[in-house]
């Protein structure tokens, strides 16, 4: 795997009044990495995503994507530079079909979003890419059904297809299999596993089976701080991580204090 760093956070801090949701987070994601971000509820994973995607502005610290400082860019500008996310709770365009949705996203990604004088169907390359994505995400047979009428698993697939249509360099997957019924799960896991190798993926997930089968690198977040980082093997045998996941509140705090004291 390439050692080149695609996404890098340096000393990221986010304070809400007196509460520090993100505390001095430093994180590097290499090109093509399958990087998992784990941590108990309230660890600050969502805040970190919002900082990365530009929904929130950091109190301190910088975020660089492909060497460019994007810390102060608006969300849609970060998307154009390749920082794309999916949502834990589906955020879809209910009245559109998957075909219309993907045609829109591909058009937008190719800089045609402001084009008002031509039909969205006028660009063959857009339809071609939309078709590829529909096939890749097993959405071809429901391509012309309204999104609001799709089965949950299909909507989940569309959620990821939309993100991939944005041609991400870094893809933030926020609990991709959350709430997917067992019968539709396999299809989803396959597509997640088959994501393009050159796209770096930052996966936020509670499902440890998925995390350990998918990730080649893991970061453990606790109370807004990076507890530790390493390969899945290292994380699995890390005593601090075990304490955080299995232990009581006191032990968590001790583990965190131990890390902060370092």
């Amino acid at each position: 795997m390439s050692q080149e760093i695609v996404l890098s956070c340096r000393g990221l801090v986010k304070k809400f009044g007196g509460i520090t949701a993100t505390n001095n987070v430093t994180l590097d994601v290499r090109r093509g990495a399958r990087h998992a971000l784990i941590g108990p509820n309230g660890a600050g994973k969502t805040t970190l995503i919002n900082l990365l995607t530009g929904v929130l502005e950091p109190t301190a610290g910088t975020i660089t994507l492909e060497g460019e400082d994007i810390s102060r860019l608006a969300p849609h500008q970060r998307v154009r530079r390749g920082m794309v996310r999916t949502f834990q709770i589906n955020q879809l365009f209910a009245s559109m079909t998957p075909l219309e949705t993907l045609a829109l996203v591909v058009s937008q990604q190719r800089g045609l979003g402001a084009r008002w004088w031509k039909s969205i169907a006028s660009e063959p390359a857009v339809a071609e890419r939309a078709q590829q994505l529909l096939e890749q995400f097993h959405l071809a047979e429901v391509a012309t059904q309204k999104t609001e009428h799709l089965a949950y698993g299909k909507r989940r697939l569309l959620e990821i297809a939309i993100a991939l249509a944005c041609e991400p360099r870094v893809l933030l997957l926020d609990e991709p299999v959350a709430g997917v019924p067992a019968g539709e799960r396999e299809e989803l896991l396959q597509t997640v596993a088959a994501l393009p190798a050159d796209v770096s993926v930052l996966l936020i997930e509670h499902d440890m089976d998925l995390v350990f089968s998918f990730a080649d690198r893991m970061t453990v977040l606790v109370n807004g701080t990076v507890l530790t980082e390493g390969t899945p093997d290292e994380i699995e045998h890390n005593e601090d991580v075990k304490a955080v996941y299995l232990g009581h509140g006191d032990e968590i705090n001790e583990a965190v204090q131990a890390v902060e004291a370092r």
Partner: protein
Amino acid sequence: MSTPAELQSILLRNARWRPWEFAVWALAFALPLVTPSHALMINEIAIVALFAMSLDLILGYTGIVSLGHAAFFGFGAYAAALFAKHVMPEPTVGLLVAIGLSAVLGAIASVTILRGTDLTRLMVTLGLALILLELANKLDWLTGGTDGIQGLTIAPVLGRFEFGLDGQVASYFTMTLLLVFFLIARVIVNSPFGATLKAIRDNKLRAMAIGVPVHARLIAIYTVAAGIAGAAGAAFTLTSGYVSLEALSFDRSADVMLMVVIGGIGWLYGGILGAVVFKVIQDVLSQITPQYWMFWIGLFLVVLVLVGRDRLLRPWTWGRKA
């Protein structure tokens, strides 16, 4: 498996002209000749239909709720009146000036609707319309106050067609305007730009997350809609030869929203259909019960909402269970 070309044609399907559409437009353009006695009414309907279509662009396609759309209608109406009175009586130039000025007002006003929810937008749009109404009322040296601007002399359209009392030229003038803006709006809503508007309407958060510059889009469509509303207002002034405070009134904002709701939002024919239904009901009812016609409109709306538009248009399904 569908090929890309097939998918393209599926996407094109929404934008394709259907036979009934040609028939509707042909019928509409034949009407002033067939029933010349109704030409004035046809003109009136075409004006509000254009106005309603403009509202649908922001309400139905972009999800911006506005209870003050008359601000742009009235602004266009006054702009056309002042231009005819002080600069030149040429209607085409006056129309273009009114459209341009209304669009500029729309661009400026769009900052008030960028943020906020439906409720806050309802309030700020209403507020803008009320401010303009009050300005038109107070600045009587300019706007004639409560009297409005009356007895305007409007030159013949293209130097040839004089707006007569029978309303025939007026109805063709306005319907041509309606058709032109309909064609433009149709191109817009089927374009990638139009798709980004629907994306904003359906899910603003996700629209942002796929790289749509939401604010730029809202400003753009609000400007366009304001320009079209201004065109409707200008058509009102130019074909009637006067303008009054009524053009900016709350009633006008509320009526146009009713029309769009009656005809169906997010559908370009919705505004037109709503305008026809509203005006015809108004005309028929006000002949029967001049004082209480609003009661019947209200009753109609309640029935429409309870029964649903689809079912109301299909009486043969009334016996069946929903």
